[in-house]
């Protein structure tokens, strides 16, 4: 297993003063996988990615990257690249100069064609010779990705790469990462948004306050969602409310204040099967169903439920 694993981590713990940033984190990422790291702000994503990049060492636990056990700070396996928090670039240099100087710093002689190609792939071909000073957040993010790709990495670590990207940019980045994974490299990226990662990642790890609350394929996460809130619009709201109240396995949730002109909707919480029952009874009672759907998409709901963020959400 570990020979094929790009990352193999056991009980990683990282403590800053009295903040436990990571606690007993296990992580297994097979080579060639795109692995997502999700969690709310302060969950420990950046800290974990920093450990993988060798920027710091764990206080406890073992970590093996590309078959190399982690040692001192900054000593990591060859072929690991990426950034945490936000990618670095030098504003006085152009996009191209940032890449060429970085390549020659690392002693990678790259044909200028390679760098042009890289800039094109991340969508910066047009502005290759503009100084980075004038770049937007998204453009800097793209440049950071290009810089991380310079050394043909075997493990790419990206902290919130979608930050500041427009939809086209996101698609480009997804394409680049998918290509990279297809060529056998491993990608680990983080986001605080589930929907960013669902389409891209083979597997995700959910972090909440430094602990792993879920790790596995996205489809399995969806099944974890359990009870969901459904929004229901019928032809007979009063009757629907009565029937829903009778259904003991369901909870009626006080929905948001409805704006004038809004269709009178009901929000009920329950498992999928119970909702099926409710629909059958409503139809039996002659109420037509006009709208029915989860208030929050299942993945998001699972995310909220597992990270404990939904409690705050609803008590607000």
């Amino acid at each position: 297993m570990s020979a094929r694993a790009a990352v193999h981590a056991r009980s990683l713990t990282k403590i800053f003063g009295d903040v436990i940033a990571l606690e007993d984190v296990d992580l297994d990422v097979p080579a060639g996988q795109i692995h997502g790291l999700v969690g709310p702000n302060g969950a420990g994503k950046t800290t974990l990615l920093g450990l993988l990049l060798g920027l710091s060492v764990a206080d406890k636990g073992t970590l093996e990257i590309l078959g190399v056990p982690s040692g001192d700070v900054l000593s990591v396996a060859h072929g690991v690249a990426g950034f945490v928090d936000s990618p670095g670039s030098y504003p006085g240099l152009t996009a191209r100069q940032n890449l060429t100087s970085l390549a020659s710093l690392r002693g990678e002689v790259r044909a200028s064609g390679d760098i042009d190609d890289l800039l094109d792939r991340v969508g910066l071909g047009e502005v290759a010779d503009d100084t980075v000073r004038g770049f937007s957040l998204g453009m800097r993010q793209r440049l950071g990705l290009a810089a991380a790709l310079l050394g043909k990495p075997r493990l790419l670590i990206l902290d919130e790469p979608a930050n500041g990207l427009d939809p086209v940019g996101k698609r480009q980045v997804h394409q680049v990462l998918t290509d990279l994974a297809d060529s056998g490299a491993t990608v680990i990226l983080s986001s605080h948004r589930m929907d960013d990662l669902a389409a891209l990642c083979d597997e995700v790890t959910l972090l909440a306050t430094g602990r792993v609350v879920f790790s596995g394929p996205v489809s399995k996460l969806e099944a974890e969602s359990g009870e969901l809130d459904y929004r229901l619009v019928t032809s007979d709201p009063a009757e629907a409310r009565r029937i829903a109240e009778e259904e003991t396995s369901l909870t009626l949730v006080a929905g948001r204040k409805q704006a004038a002109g809004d269709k009178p909707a009901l929000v009920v919480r329950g498992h999928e099967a119970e909702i099926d029952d409710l629909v059958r009874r409503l139809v039996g009672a002659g109420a037509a169903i006009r709208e029915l759907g989860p208030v929050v998409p299942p993945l998001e709901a699972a995310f909220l439920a597992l990270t404990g963020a939904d409690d705050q959400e609803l008590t607000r």
Partner: protein
Amino acid sequence: MTALTLDEPRRTEPVALRRGYRFEMVKLVSQWRLRVVLLACLLAPAIYTAVVSRQTTLPADAVYGRLMNQSGWAGSLTILVFMGTLALPLLTSVVAGDIFAAEDRLGTWRHLLIAVRSPRRIFWAKTLAALTATLVLLAALALSSVVGGVLSVGAHPLPGLDGHQLSSAALARTIALAWLSVVPPTLAFSAVGLLGSVALGRSPLGLLMPVAVALVLEGVQLLPIPVALRMALPINAFLSYRGLTTEPAQLSALWIGIAVSLAWTALATFLAYRIFTRRDFTNIAFDGNASRFALVGLAPLVALAVVSTGVIAAATGAVGNGVERVKLESALSTSFSHLYVLQTERLGRPVVTEGELHATAACDKGGERVEDAGPGADWRCVVTWTLPGATAEGNAIYQLDVLPDGRFTADGDGPKEVNGFFQVRTPTGDAPNPLWQFDGLVDLLAEAKGQE
């Protein structure tokens, strides 16, 4: 590449220092601020010397300032005065004071660490890059200061600070050595800049550390402090070039200045290195810790100043502030003799030599009630000499303003035909009177020999 080599597990090597250095240079050169500074260093001294040399009011407060209209070489020596007081510490602030702080400002530490994989290499690459940039700027200043003056008023001989004539060739050599002599203290302030930059991150205090240290030391230097302490401060090394213009040259201060500067350079660089390599780079909010810095950054430098004061005191046996009546009288009479010979030449009178004049000076400070020692503007001296074949003695009076650093300004107080007027009438028209006002230098470290 084969699959085998690809899969072979190995660690990344830190990048070579040479590559790190080149990367730092690329970043430095890309800074518009540094380009502006280089342009200023190339132009400002040349423009200043070219313009001021042609003015009627000259910066007489600066050594050689009053001679700027007489020789282009004086311009470069005048610029050197400003270098030590503020320009070079400021320059080191801009370069060394910023080289680490820039990464804090841009938030690029982790980017750089991931690329280089060694804080030590980063430290040395940055230190060498700052050194290179500083030396380039210094060379630009030196070159520009010479070019401006020489183009504007030409290369003519000038008297040294003991009055003896320096030919153009000797001046060129002296000026080259003088600019070289400010390199060690510049390095010392650069190292202080590195220390501030490393220890205080983005905070402006870190950036301005060399200037702050220079201002404090200059304040101390204005006081009549003991010679040993004066010599132990790196700021004094900016002044020691003045000893190169005398015959014989006053080299003790020069060598001590170089040794002190190198000691400061080594210690401040070491402290910066230690702080830097122990830094936690995972914390992006890092902005230094001023109280810790005072302890691990400034206290050792203060200790160094104390220790070197002791060493210098023991090695030279120097006590007191070094401005003594006997030394002042000897410096004044020497300068007077040399400049009298020059005046004789200008007037086309029969040739005399310094030796034939047997000039002596008698100085008194502040009248009867004041002790005749130490710096002050209240020195009054009478120079006495005899011309070969003449029976009567010549007498001339000078008011002296003696500064704590050993430099003095002698202002002629008559008689009118010797030193009371700023011009002399020569066969070819009016010429500046070399005896009217001149600068001199007391060797603070010299032992006061008994009466003559």
